[in-house]
């Protein structure tokens, strides 16, 4: 079933009157600035790694490579320093710092975080292995005997060995294959051990590391780095959620069915108008009810916040989401966010294309509500296998009518040939067939990973650049 809805009515609530040219220029500048920030952060990340090595070289490390023993030791030290740098960068990426989140997005940040995990572990293991060999050579001991001797004779070394074990545990449980076998909560708790791993690694760095010794100026670089990471974690992982929760004091007002297996949870709270414009971006929710409070959920808003009202729409995905359908009115809610680049801030072009599948449709509705576009410049494509899973279809249709957007409903089984994101009855078509001004548009895609990738692929082959593509995977 395909329906094209088009309305040329005056938009009911244009965000701001702006000329098409003005909007295009503003968006382009915004996009350029974001890319500049991204490049800057990339440079910063690489520079921190280089600095870890450079600080060692500045201490005369380059002179250590003239014999096997000191060369082995030096490699070990450098591995440890770079490994430490990677771990700290990983913590920064996971700290939900607005600058990072608003530049590369939470998704990308966590993707990079995940990619750094294994290299960091390898470096830490290399640190241990090379130093055991290096010191062993110096002491004329085999590495294992050297390890025993270090454990016994050096302060804080046993804690460092524990740290290594914790790092191994954290990375191994994060491997996709292992992670699937255990519930999310298990992985989450183990992942918290990262903090223990970092903390247990600290003492030996400062009691035995030559760069960390008192009087070394390099010591201050590392102390400041550690403090920055600690401050970021405290500020954005701990303080920000608490502050936001107390500021808005959210509670559930009602839970209504939103179609097949999905519910809309409506919340009320104070000063919610401050969150206006957060549509599409996600918040992390904690419903403070027995059995639910310890589980947090990343959900996007399904309606842009207005004074006193907030709404999310969720489907029974994981165990936790299923329980949410029975959450009682009056339940207090802790919240942090908004996170992610899946929102207005990521716009770079005047045209807007929103493509959603299943429950992934819901954040698009919130974006559509407040997005800046000229009538006729926006296209909404909803994809579902059955009409019942075209969540919030009626609301979106009404918004499209008001704002002058084009809406397509693509319902049916997945196509066997051609574009895999389209239903069978649309075989042979592509994204550009639905959107005439595709090249001059931003494309927001939200749905299951494979499907999302297929849409993005389609958009790319139509000539769109990365900065025009925005996506949110909806399969946590």
């Amino acid at each position, binding site marked *: 079933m395909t329906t094209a809805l088009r309305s040329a009515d005056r938009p009911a609530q244009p965000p701001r009157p702006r000329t098409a040219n003005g909007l295009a220029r503003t968006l382009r500048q915004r996009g350029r600035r974001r*890319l500049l920030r*991204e*490049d800057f952060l*990339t*440079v910063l*990340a*690489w*520079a921190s*790694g*280089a*600095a870890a*090595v*450079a*600080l*060692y*070289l*500045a*201490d*005369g*490390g*380059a*002179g250590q490579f003239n014999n096997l023993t000191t060369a082995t030791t030096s490699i070990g030290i450098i591995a440890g320093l770079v490994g430490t740098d990677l771990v700290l960068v990983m913590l920064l990426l996971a700290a939900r710092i607005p600058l990072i989140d608003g530049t590369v997005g939470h998704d990308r940040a966590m993707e990079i975080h995940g990619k750094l995990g294994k290299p960091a572990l390898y470096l830490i293991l290399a640190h241990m292995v090379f130093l055991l060999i290096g010191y062993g050579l110096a002491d004329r001991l085999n590495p294992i005997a050297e390890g025993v001797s270090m454990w016994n004779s050096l302060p804080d070394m046993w804690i460092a060995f524990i740290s290594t074990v914790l790092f191994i545990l954290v990375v191994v449980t994060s491997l996709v294959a292992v992670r699937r076998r255990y519930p999310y909560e298990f992985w989450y708790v183990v992942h918290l051990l990262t903090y223990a791993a970092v903390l247990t690694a600290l003492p030996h760095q400062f009691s035995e590391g030559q760069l960390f010794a008192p009087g070394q100026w390099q010591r201050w670089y590392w102390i400041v780095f550690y403090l920055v990471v600690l401050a970021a974690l405290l500020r954005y992982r701990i303080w920000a959620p608490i502050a936001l929760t107390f500021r808005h004091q959210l509670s559930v007002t009602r839970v209504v069915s939103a179609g097949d297996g999905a519910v809309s949870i409506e919340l009320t709270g104070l000063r919610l108008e401050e969150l206006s414009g957060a549509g599409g971006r996600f918040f992390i929710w904690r419903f403070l009810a027995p059995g639910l409070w310890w589980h947090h959920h990343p959900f996007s808003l399904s309606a842009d916040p207005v004074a006193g009202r907030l709404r999310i729409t969720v489907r029974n995905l994981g165990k936790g989401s299923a329980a949410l359908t029975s959450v009682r009115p009056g339940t207090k809610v802790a919240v942090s966010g908004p996170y992610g680049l899946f929102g207005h801030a990521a716009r770079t072009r005047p045209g807007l294309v929103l493509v959603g599948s299943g429950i992934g449709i819901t954040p698009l509705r919130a974006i559509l509500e407040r997005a800046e576009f000229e009538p006729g410049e926006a296209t909404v494509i909803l994809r579902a296998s059955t009409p019942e899973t075209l969540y919030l279809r009626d609301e979106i249709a009404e918004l499209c009518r008001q704002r002058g957007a084009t809406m397509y409903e693509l319902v049916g089984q997945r196509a066997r040939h051609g574009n895999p994101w389209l239903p069978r009855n649309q075989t042979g078509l592509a994204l550009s067939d639905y959107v005439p001004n595709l090249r001059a548009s931003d494309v927001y895609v939200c749905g299951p990973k494979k499907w999302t990738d297929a849409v993005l692929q389609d958009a790319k082959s139509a000539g769109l650049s990365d900065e025009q593509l925005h996506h949110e995977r909806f399969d946590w």
Partner: protein
Amino acid sequence: MRARAAAAAALASFGILALGWQAGAQSIEASKVVGVTNSATGTAGSASSGSAGSPGSGSSASSGGTTAAGGTTGAGGTSTGSTGSTGSSTSGSGSTSSGSQSSASSGLKNGTFTGATEQTRYGLIQVQIVVSGGKITDVQTPQLTGDDMRSDMINSEAAPILRSEVLQAQSANVDTVSGATYTSEGYLASLQAALNSAHA
């Protein structure tokens, strides 16, 4: 990663590494001054073997050094001591030195030769060698001053010294052994035990 980011990141990283390298190279350079004693040690072997009476192979290195010293101003080669040994081989006398092994004795003039003064981290240093019978019999650093001339006032100043110049020792002829404790307690204990039984 975007090309611009990649280029900038590479540039920044290499820049930082280069800075670190540069800073490190300076500190290494500074610590190399200790090489005065280090590589002089190489020559020391010759001096000691020479004084021991055997025309040791080490005399090749020393011959190079002395040839340089024998030159009017070439003494600078010896002055650093370290340069003495390396400089000698580069100055071409190193090539003769291997051949001059036997003729070394004829190639070296007897007498005392003093090198040019060299600035080191520890102040000015000047090396003097004594050649006798075609062999270096002594290497000394007669002048060693701090920038503030402080060291001139201290007659017990610690100066670079060759390994051959210290009182030699074998475990057989000492009564006791001193060493940094953590290093080799086992060794100290066993050596001490051996000494004890030797003396008991």
